[in-house]
C-alpha cells in the first residue's frame, strides 16, 4: 500500500468519526475550533519568545543553557501533559478534590471522539491547556538563571508540573475545583494570574532563596549580553499572549474580542508607564525597560481579561509597571538573586492583577453575581481573590522548596563553582552561542 492510500484511508476514517458522533453529543463549531487551534499555536510561540527574552538577558557564556531551560519545558511537559498531566488537572475530583484523576484521560485516550459543549474538540482544549503547563515552569527559570544544572532542571520541572501546576490548575479551572466554586461566581482568574504567574513567580522566589546568589553577585556587574534578543522575545510574547488570554474564553465571540482588546491596552500602558518612570528617574528610556513594561502589563491583565474594560486595563497596566519597578528596586536593596526578575515581574504583576481587578469589574458581572448571591460586592469578591492569591503563594512556595530539596539531594541542582565560572553553554552543553569567538 502506498503512503497516499494510507493517508486517504486515514482521512476517510477521520472524517467519518465525528459524523457518527454528531447525533449524540455537541456539534463542532468550526469558528471556535479554528480560533482555539490558532490560540494553541500562539501560546506555544510564547515559549521560544521567552527563551529569547531570557537568553538575551544573561551573560554570553550562558545563552544556550538559558534558552534550553525553556525548550526543555516544551519537550518534557509536552510529553508529560498528555501522559498524566491533563488527567491530573481536568479529571474529576480525587483525594477529596486535592487533584483530579481519570484513568481514561491517561494518554488522552477517552477524548478521542469528544466534542466539548463549547463546540470545540476536547483535543484542542487539552492541547491549549498543555501549552500553559509548558510555559509556567519555563517562567521559573528566570529566577535561577546561570547557576543550575540541566538534569536538575529537567527533574525539577517534571516534579513541579505534577505536584504544583496540576493541582493548582485543577483547583482554579476544573468545574469541580476549590477556587472555581468560591463565593458567588468563583475566584476570578481568566487566563492564569494565580495558576501561571503567581505560582511561577512565588516558586522562582523560593528557588532563588534556596539556591543562593550567583558567584560574584551583586558586586560583579552582570549585564545582558544581547538586548536585541530580549526585545524580539518580548514582541513574540506580546503576540503569543493574544492566544493566551483571548483563547482562554474557549470560544470565538464577544468575550474573546473583549479579552483581546484589554490585553493589547494593558501591555501598551505597562510599557508606556515603565519607560516614563525611567525617563523621569534616570533620564534614559531603555529598551530593557520597554520589554519589562510590556511583560508587566501582559501579566497584570491575565487574570483580569474576562472582567475588566479598557479604562481598567489602562490603570492596571500602569499600576503593574510601578509595582514591578518598585519590587526590582527592593530586590536590589534586599540582595537576593532573582536573576531575571521572575518574581519581580510575574509574581508581582500577577498579585497586582488578581487583587486589583476587583475594582474594575464590569457592571454586568456584578449583576450576575448579585443574582446568585444577593449583596455580593467588591469587599466580598476581594476576600475571595485574596484567599486564592494567598493559598497559591503558600502552596507554591512550600511545594517548590520540598521539590528543590529532593532534586538537590538526588541529582544535584546547583552547578559547581568552576562550571558557573566557565558558563553553562560550554560546561554542560559543549557548545557556544556565538561562533565568532571560535574561528574554526
Amino acid at each position: 500500500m502506498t503512503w497516499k492510500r494510507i493517508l486517504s484511508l486515514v482521512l476517510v476514517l477521520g472524517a467519518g468519526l465525528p459524523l457518527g458522533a454528531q447525533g449524540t453529543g455537541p456539534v463542532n463549531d468550526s469558528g471556535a475550533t479554528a480560533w482555539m487551534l490558532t490560540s494553541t499555536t500562539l501560546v506555544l510561540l510564547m515559549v521560544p519568545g521567552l527563551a529569547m527574552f531570557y537568553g538575551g538577558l544573561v551573560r554570553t557564556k550562558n545563552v544556550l543553557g538559558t534558552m534550553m531551560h525553556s525548550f526543555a519545558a516544551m519537550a518534557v511537559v509536552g510529553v508529560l501533559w498528555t501522559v498524566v498531566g491533563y488527567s491530573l488537572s481536568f479529571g474529576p475530583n480525587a483525594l477529596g478534590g486535592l487533584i483530579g484523576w481519570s484513568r481514561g484521560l491517561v494518554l488522552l485516550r477517552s477524548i478521542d471522539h469528544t466534542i466539548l459543549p463549547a463546540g470545540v474538540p476536547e483535543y484542542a482544549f487539552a492541547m491549549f491547556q498543555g501549552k500553559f503547563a509548558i510555559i509556567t515552569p519555563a517562567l521559573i527559570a528566570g529566577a535561577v538563571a546561570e547557576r543550575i544544572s540541566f538534569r536538575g532542571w529537567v527533574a525539577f520541572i517534571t516534579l513541579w508540573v505534577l505536584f504544583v501546576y496540576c493541582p493548582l490548575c485543577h483547583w482554579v479551572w476544573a468545574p469541580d475545583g476549590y477556587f472555581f466554586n468560591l463565593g458567588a461566581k468563583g475566584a476570578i482568574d481568566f487566563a492564569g494570574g494565580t495558576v501561571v504567574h503567581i505560582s511561577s513567580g512565588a516558586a522562582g522566589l523560593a528557588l532563588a532563596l534556596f539556591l543562593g546568589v550567583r558567584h560574584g553577585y551583586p558586586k560583579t556587574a552582570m549585564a545582558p549580553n544581547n538586548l536585541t534578543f530580549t526585545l524580539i522575545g518580548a514582541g513574540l510574547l506580546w503576540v503569543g499572549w493574544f492566544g493566551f488570554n483571548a483563547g482562554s474564553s474557549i470560544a470565538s465571540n464577544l468575550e474573546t474580542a473583549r479579552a483581546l482588546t484589554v490585553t493589547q491596552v494593558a501591555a501598551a500602558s505597562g510599557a508606556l508607564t515603565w519607560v516614563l518612570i525611567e525617563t523621569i528617574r534616570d533620564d534614559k528610556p531603555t529598551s530593557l525597560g520597554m520589554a519589562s513594561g510590556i511583560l508587566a502589563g501582559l501579566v497584570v491583565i491575565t487574570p483580569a481579561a474576562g472582567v475588566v474594560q479598557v479604562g481598567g486595563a489602562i490603570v492596571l497596566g500602569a499600576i503593574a509597571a510601578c509595582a514591578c519597578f518598585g519590587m526590582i528596586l527592593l530586590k536590589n536593596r534586599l540582595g537576593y538573586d532573582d536573576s531575571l526578575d521572575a518574581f519581580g515581574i510575574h509574581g508581582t504583576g500577577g498579585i497586582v492583577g488578581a487583587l486589583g481587578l476587583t475594582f474594575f469589574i464590569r457592571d454586568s458581572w456584578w449583576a450576575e453575581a448579585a443574582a446568585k448571591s444577593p449583596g455580593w460586592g467588591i469587599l466580598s469578591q476581594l476576600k475571595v481573590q485574596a484567599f486564592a492569591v494567598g493559598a497559591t503563594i503558600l502552596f507554591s512556595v512550600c511545594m517548590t522548596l520540598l521539590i528543590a530539596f529532593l532534586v538537590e539531594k538526588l541529582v544535584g541542582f546547583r552547578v559547581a563553582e568552576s562550571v558557573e565560572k566557565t558558563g553553562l553553554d560550554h560546561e554542560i552543553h559543549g557548545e557556544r552561542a556565538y561562533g565568532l569567538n571560535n574561528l574554526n
Partner: protein
Amino acid sequence: MKLITAIIPEEKLDEVREALIEAEIERITVLRVSGHGRQQEIVVQRGKKVVPNLIPKVQITIACNDAFEDITVDTIIRTARHGGGEVGDGKIFVQDLKECIRIRTGERGGQAI
C-alpha cells in the same frame, strides 16, 4: 616600563581580575582570542567527535612600571593556574615598553601609566 600580555583560560578571568584589583593593578585591557597550543578539546556535534583547531582564550594586556612587573606576573600565575597546573593554563609574555602616553593630558613615560 613593561607590557605584560597574558593568555589565560576563559573561566579564570574573574579570579585573575579580582586578584589583580586587590594587588592594586587596576588598569587592564581584556580581549577574547582564539588560538592553539598543546591543549586539545574534543567537542561532540550530533554524535560526531570534533577537535576544534582553535580554542577560545582570554587575553589580558597590562602596561606597568618596572617595580610592578613581579607582582603582576605572580598574581596571574597564582590565579590562572588549575590546581597543580594543566596543559591549557596559558602563557605570559613580558616586553619592554618604549613609551606610554596619556591622551587626555599628553603626559609621557612612567607617570602616564
